[in-house]
């Protein structure tokens, strides 16, 4: 099962390596990882996507919590949540495909962020499935370069 875990941690040197060391040392897998400061510059938020059965994920959350620099660990896939990824894709765009590329990007509400005579660099944001869909469609046209972020995620607020 895929789990998206959100970890608040102190923004100190070496903290990230404590987290990744925990995963490599105990043989847990990390599918993606993304980390940045929160509003409080002393605290970082790390989102990581991992896979494992319930027992493994329970160990992962407990082990993360055990790290002295970790403030809070939430398995947000336990509840309703939104997740996003971003991809920058440089796609071949020559005279015969330029219009088509633009049309595709438009459908996926992407943005062109860099233009050259033979290519466009486009920015796509969305859940993993959407990024995958864009990649699948652009592939036949010719993807020259791709850079992706890890997943970031946030639990949805309670409706009542």
């Amino acid at each position: 099962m895929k789990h998206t875990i959100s970890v608040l941690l102190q923004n100190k040197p070496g903290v990230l390596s404590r987290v990744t060391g925990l995963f490599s040392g105990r043989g847990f897998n990390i599918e993606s990882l993304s980390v940045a400061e929160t509003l409080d510059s002393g605290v970082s938020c790390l989102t990581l996507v991992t896979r494992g059965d319930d027992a493994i994920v329970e160990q992962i959350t407990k082990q993360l919590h055990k790290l002295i620099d970790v403030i809070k660990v939430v398995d947000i896939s336990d509840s309703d949540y939104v997740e996003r990824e971003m991809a920058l894709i440089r796609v071949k765009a020559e005279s015969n495909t330029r219009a088509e590329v633009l049309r595709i990007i438009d459908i996926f509400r992407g943005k062109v962020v860099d233009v050259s005579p033979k290519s466009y660099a486009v920015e796509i944001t969305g859940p993993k499935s959407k990024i995958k869909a864009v990649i699948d469609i652009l592939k036949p046209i010719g993807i020259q370069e791709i850079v992706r972020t890890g997943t970031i995620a946030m639990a949805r607020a309670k409706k009542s």
Partner: protein
Amino acid sequence: MKITGAEAIVKCLEEQGVEVIFGFPGGVIIDLFDELETSSITNVLVRHEQAAVHAADAYGRVKGEVGVALVTSGPGATNTVTGIASAYCDSIPMVVFTGQVPTGLIGNDAFQEVDIVGITRPCTKHNYLVKDINELMPTIREAFHVARTGRPGPVLIDLPKDVVIGKLNYTKPKPIKMQTYRPTYEPHPGQIAKACKAILKAKKPVIYAGGGVIASNSNKELTELAKKLNIPVTMTLMGLGGFPGTDKLSLGMLGMHGTYFANMAVSQCDLLIAVGSRFDDRVTGKIDDFAPYAKIIHIDIDPTSISKNVTVDIPIVADCKYALTAINRWFDVQDDFDKKEQKKKVAPWFKEINKWVKKHPLGYLEEGDIIKPQYVVQKLHELTKGDAIISTEVGQNQMWAAQFYHFNKPRHFLTSGGLGVMGYGFPAAIGAQMAAPKKTVIDVAGDGSIQMNIQELATARQYNCPVKIAILNNGYLGMVRQWQELFYDKRYAGTDLEVSPDFVKLAEAYGAVGLRATKTSEVVPVIKEALKTKNVVVMDFVIAREEGVYPMVPAGKATTEMLLV
């Protein structure tokens, strides 16, 4: 008031009640040794940094305090790694200070620079590199707090030279409040009630006590529970002494070299009460067959220990002392709890257990003149009235000590349980003797292991630690040889220690006393002579070469599949 970093460190150590540290100096840390020289703290100058850490480990265990080691950068720091890893596996509170090159040089591959914080990250409870001198005092205080609270463990502080020699303003200690670290001590009352009801219902209960009982000083509470409810107690290697080993409720140790009756009892029990133990593979054997009929209660202060290897029915995250006290109180106020009824209820269970005890008691075959190692340990027990502090090396010697020195008190058995470090026992004995100068301290050693830190004979002599070393000399790396005998058609590859020093002469070379026994009849006189001697004594017991440790559960087998004497 401006003070130097070195002064600040010493002040912090004094404030923490540190009286003895174990250290070995070097270029970047001279200033701190200089400062220690005029303080109230004794520095025990070891002969290898690994020994400093093992000694600090044992010192902490015996005193129930945080042990401290101090070493220089680079090789000094890397030499501590084995000791730190051992303390981490055994949850021993410790603070290790390492020197570091000046902050300006860090990352430049400076002379004797090593990223010790990076190296020890996976084997410390936490570690720190102090880059800002104003953080020095708060960091040291926090480190001691982290080391001794919750599930204890080693903490390392890396001290760049400029931080040690720089100046700072003295700050007073404040109560430590960490946003991110708040171990749970108090058990959940609902879980306690659940556990107690399960205990009341059980017809075949067993307590399985681990090192957590020792760490939390809850041997009294454990004994109260066992006696109140008439529950047999088995202990892990780390738990020995947590319950009196000579008590009739004691089943001795369980697991790979546990007693037949402890392993059988666990395999048949209907309730397993795990107290401060962690279901290590050396205890459980084949995990699917471990305590297959039992409901499991697990008390542990570390949530990650719970349901890690074995799924637990009633988890209790708490300090063992708090949890056991809560359980005991629950029974005290329970109107319908009748001690006599309870005793009657478990009587058939004891009958069953006693059958196992009779069938295969702990024992060995005597061989006339040839010294049996078990006999040596039995005599050590007798002649010290079971009151000595025993440290061990690793291997057969360790298991014979665990099996045959029936520990009645906590903090009297020192062994590298989780990591199994050959070379632990002798420095540990020195640490123990520094902590308890009046006690008899004996390192039960193997001829292989003792050579891993034999250089500490000089340290023991220098600090008048009259520790006794009992080498169970079989001329082999015996435990490995035993596996080869059983599972590798007796191919003794790389285990025959064809050349060893003359341990008697070696002792004498260091100004210690060397004694040797080659016949059974010489064992008692040698031990008596050693115990009388105020100096360090090395006893060389030339034992049956191919004696094995039994019972034995082959690795990966169910604990009921024991090989017996």
